[in-house]
């Protein structure tokens, strides 16, 4: 079966959803502020005749209609990093600040790690973890190419991550960009739809719950945890949040993203979820002509009022 069939009941415009999922996505790069501003990247593209288009909701993203994101000088200089548009969203939600301690629990190959480091002006400490040593070498390559110097790389199972190798025992913020069934990437890689199985959804949901629970535990009271996936499956999204809300001291907060989103769902195939999962955001491909995505923001410690009141709390 095509797993996209199961989500037709969740979207408002089934035809637009299916049509968008069938279109391929352009190559996109993110300007790496550690090395160069978006303006410098633009100047270098202009000088070397690289065609690009802006992304209206993020000035550091460029669509490259001719593809080949690695075949130009800005890439060689570490000024750009190939990254799908929706993939920048979790770091925007995480909103890390210079000097903080941030955990990227499932970090390889490092697109979000390097974006986090960039948002921190390469100051503070990012701990980039992944359980897959081979993928970690891609992360290290990317981090070095982009000139990131504030990142420690660890190779642990995130579900029982130990802070013992670190100089501190809790984080200000944590990102769980979880391994998932990835239907949201079908516009780049249609094979994910053929390989999809419900058994895998259930298996990976167990892992997601374990990693998110550990991220909440490893983050200081008042700190922020962001959970994201590139799947539409409620089993891997709202159900994971519902589980962690019930078992850990945390709550979902409302937050803004710079594109059109749909709220998390509270019912799916006979299950119901905590009402607050509506604060999570679903990104459907037909809304903004992007890949599919899911993103939720949690506050650690149950004292929050449900708003993203970091400016006040700080």
């Amino acid at each position, binding site marked *: 079966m095509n797993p996209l069939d199961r989500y037709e009941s969740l979207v408002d415009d089934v035809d637009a959803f299916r049509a968008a999922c069938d279109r391929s996505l352009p190559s996109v790069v993110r300007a790496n502020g550690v*090395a160069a501003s978006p303006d*410098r990247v633009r*100047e*270098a593209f*202009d*000088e*070397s*005749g690289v065609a690009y288009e802006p992304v209206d909701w993020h000035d550091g993203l460029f669509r490259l209609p001719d593809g080949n994101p*690695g*075949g*130009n*000088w*800005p*890439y*060689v*200089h*570490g000024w750009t990093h190939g990254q799908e548009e929706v993939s920048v969203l979790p770091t925007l939600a995480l909103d890390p600040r210079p000097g903080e*301690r941030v955990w990227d629990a499932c970090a390889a190959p490092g697109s979000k790690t390097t974006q986090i480091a960039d948002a921190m002006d*390469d*100051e*503070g*400490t*990012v701990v980039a973890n992944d359980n897959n*040593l081979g993928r*970690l070498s891609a992360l*290290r*390559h990317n*981090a*070095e*190419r982009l*000139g*990131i*110097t*504030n*990142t*420690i*790389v*660890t*190779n642990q199972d995130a579900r029982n991550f130990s802070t013992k*190798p*670190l*100089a*501190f025992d809790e984080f200000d913020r944590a990102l769980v960009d979880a391994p998932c069934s990835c239907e949201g990437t079908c516009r780049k890689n249609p094979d994910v739809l053929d390989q999809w199985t419900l058994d895998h959804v259930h298996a990976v949901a167990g892992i997601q719950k374990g990693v998110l629970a550990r991220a909440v535990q490893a983050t200081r009271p008042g700190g922020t945890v962001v959970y994201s996936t590139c799947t539409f499956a409620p089993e891997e999204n709202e159900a994971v949040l519902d589980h962690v809300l019930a078992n850990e001291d945390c709550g979902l907060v409302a937050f803004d993203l710079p594109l059109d989103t749909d709220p998390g769902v509270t019912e799916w195939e006979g299950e119901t979820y905590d009402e607050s999962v509506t604060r999570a955001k679903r990104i459907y491909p037909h809304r903004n002509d992007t890949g599919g995505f899911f993103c939720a923001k949690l506050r650690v410690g149950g004292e929050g009022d449900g708003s993203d009141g970091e400016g006040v709390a700080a």
Partner: protein
Amino acid sequence: MSDDAAAAGEAASDAPTNDGQQFDRLPETPADREVQGRASRAEVLDWWAERFGIGEGVFEEYGFWEKGAGKIWVFNGEATDPSEVEAVGMTFLRTRQEHWKPTGRAVSRFGAHATKNVIELDPEQASRFAAGDDQDIPEWDGDWGYLIATHEVAGESVPIGVGLYLYDELRSVVPKGSRADLPVVE
């Protein structure tokens, strides 16, 4: 027995040796050195200042760490000493050899501060350099050894990587995995 331990010889058989499996912070000065052969922070700062004119202020906030024989890492964050992790910051400098060698990534990150031993390449030379080609550049009248190769991008000089200049020739030492086939941008 490692070379380091052998080099330590009779000086102290129980002296600490370099453990290639962990990151250790460099000692501040040669007088603080406990591990035979390990570069000190002061020597590393002196080397960048002498070789490329990059002042120590540029590196004030950064820590220097060794893992493996002579591989120095630069890190701008908090870490335990020692650290048993996969990476602490980025690779920076190869020591424990006669001529210390900066990494291409370090030059890309910090090379814009350099004031000497910088060779500016024209567009065609820059593309050949990025592709990993060696090329004759007899007009260079500066030092031999490791140079920072730069080219102009949209009005500013930008470091590309590390070249080794010997006998009128600039050898590109861009690692194979980082070589690129780029168009000449006039």
